[in-house]
């Protein structure tokens, strides 16, 4: 980057961090951090998307239950909640492939099973929270 650009904020300014002092890895070198998980920025984006997908599915389901008058719209049996979490994981993976993001993450060593889990785990966690809240609340 030319020095004349230094006065303007560029993507480099975001990268000037103490981490820049780390020694350079050899060619093909080991990753720093936990190798099989996506880098943090990607992981945050994936988890956010998983939560959005789960919330969208929950809203649709609640609307459907309310329209059919088939009971309390937010209360699901554990088996249905598990299915919902599985579906959220699958939809997360489908969306990832639709956006072709799996190619970059694959290039970073992140396998399909881990990508599926990034959709499944947040949904399963949120479903567990809802189940727990149902048992705790009077």
């Amino acid at each position, binding site marked *: *980057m*030319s020095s004349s*650009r230094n006065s*303007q*904020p*560029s*993507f*480099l300014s*975001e*990268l000037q*961090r103490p*981490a*820049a*002092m*780390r*020694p*350079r*890895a*050899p*060619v*093909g*070198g080991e*990753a*720093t*951090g936990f*190798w099989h998980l996506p*880098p*943090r*920025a*990607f992981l945050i*984006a994936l988890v956010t998307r998983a939560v959005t997908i789960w919330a969208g599915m929950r809203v649709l389901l609640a609307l459907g239950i309310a329209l059919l008058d088939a009971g309390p719209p937010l209360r699901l049996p554990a088996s249905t909640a598990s299915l919902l979490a599985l579906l959220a994981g699958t939809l997360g993976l489908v969306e990832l492939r639709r*956006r*072709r*993001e799996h*190619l*970059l993450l*694959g*290039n*970073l*060593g*992140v*396998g*399909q099973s881990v990508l599926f889990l990034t959709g499944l785990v947040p949904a399963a966690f949120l479903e567990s929270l809802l189940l727990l809240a149902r048992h705790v609340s009077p």
Partner: protein
Amino acid sequence: MYRLEVDCVTKHFGRRRVLTNASLRVVAGQVLHFVGPNGAGKTTLLRVAAGLLRAEVGRVSVDGTTVPRPTLARMARLGLFFMPEESLLTPSMPLARQLRAVSERFGTVDRVEVVGEQLALHDLGDRSPTQMSVGEQRRATLALAVLRNPAILLADEPIRGIDPIDSERMLQAMQELARRGAAVVVTGHEMGLLGEYSDEMYKL
């Protein structure tokens, strides 16, 4: 010893045989170019090497060791980076964040500035890939590849439709990667330009 060896690969798509006993061997520090007409099987061969396609016959080896059931993630853990013709960038994330994430993961943060300059990525940092031209996306994708610091780089037609100046920039960056010890395989149609930057050239 070959850094990457794809041996006697045969691949069909339905009834159509795309590759018959095709092989690819590249050593560390070498830039190898594959040229050939559309439909010759260049992309298929690279995709088999990268673990994105499974060949009916043949094997893929890295540093002399056969990789069982290669997948992209498995090959990546062995140091391979596959650059497809289309963009690899995450559409919704600014380029700077993507470069930072990859460079932090692979300990190459100190190289970001050099790579940014080499590939003319000025002022693109806060842009998302959807706001970039095809040429900018290709250069940014190559920047990710370089910051990954791969032992093997497979680039599928990286300079197709790119202006000569940017094409040279990209080929120089790949040559530099080879100088640092990577094995680089590039496909394309641009025999003249590719020839200038290759150690070996094969026609498929």
